[in-house]
């Protein structure tokens, strides 16, 4: 098992679900496949999905829903 930390590709506001009424994309402990959406980052009035480039188990989020993130800031830990 190797643990890796996935960083924010762009700065903005991080969201864990597609809208406040909908469930989160991923919970801690969920399996993540390549191409899965893990969250959204809103910047310049548009939403960019955070797409998993590595498969594994999402161990922990480093940021809360609606947190401000900077580019390169740790988003979540993945165990593969």
């Amino acid at each position, binding site marked *: 098992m190797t643990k890796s930390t996935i960083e924010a590709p762009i700065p*903005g506001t991080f969201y864990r679900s597609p809208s406040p009424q909908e469930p989160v994309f991923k919970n801690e402990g969920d399996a993540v496949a390549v191409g899965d959406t893990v969250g959204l980052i809103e910047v310049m009035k548009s939403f960019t999905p955070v797409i998993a480039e590595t498969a594994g188990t999402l161990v922990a989020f480093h940021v809360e829903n609606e947190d401000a993130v900077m580019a390169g800031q740790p988003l979540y830990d993945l165990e593969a």
Partner: protein
Amino acid sequence: MADGAAMFEVVKPGLLTSVQDLGRPGYYHLGLPISGAMDRFALIAANRLVGNPDGAAGLEAVFLGPVLKFACDTTIAVTGAVMAPKVDGVEQELWSAFEIKAGQELAFGTLKAGARIYIAIAGGVDVPEVHGSRSTYALGALGGFEGRPLKAGDQVKIGAASGAAKLGVSIPEEIRRIQPASGVVLRAMPGLYWHRITEESQGSFFEDSWKVAPEADRIGYRFRGGRSLDFVPRKQPFGAGSDPSNIVDSCYPYGSIQVPGGTEPIVLHRDAVSGGGYFMVGTVISADMDLIGQLQPHQPVRFESIDMDGALAARRDEKGRLEALGAFLSG
């Protein structure tokens, strides 16, 4: 895309990548903004490295680099934000010229600092000039590549190279824009509507720390986090809106700081609207406008009051940096 043709294909556009040169001045009074690179110094430096005139069109990419596949051999330079360029996966130096061969891909690492990279290609990006400029004004669907940011599959032409690229030269760090890790200060001259806010708010505006809002873009950079501004009571003038921050419609200078409702200052930038009904607390001086283009959301910023003499001195300093760049590249 024919092999050897002077063009590149957009494999991935990044977040927002557009063709920009030094802009389209002269039409702002008609509502057409100046557009052009948010960080002009970075574009000029990239152009000079590949042997282009300062005003040649390059690409501006914000936060996320594009992936471009070249049909021809050419020379490239990337400046501005700290985001490593890669040719077929091999990392290249920023602020220096490097070669790319036909069939190779230019891609980028993740953003480490700053906000916008400038990609200059020997010969420049060859799109039609609109009102004297190749800059993209996306809101007006004008200029650049078909009046819009680049999309995957776009095939973009490259102009004729001068052959004067400065291969093997790296612009020294002291000439590059110094982006303070913390404590960014934007110098601003209090403006025509300064009297509209109370003395206490005149103080708090310059004392408070503001943070770049995630909405900040080429049109304007919005800031939040400082105390709201209080207005001096007045009788609503004919033609002005009812909010105390409203004025009788007026011209908005490039760099002007409007504060709708007195809450969140917005510094108008290259794609700004040219007029409207919000009072402006002041104007960021021209020497500090490039720096705004390199600010990321949530970055803390303070405004500092400056007078005309100070603003002109800062403009001379900025010109000196360009001269230092010229002396370095010709030396």
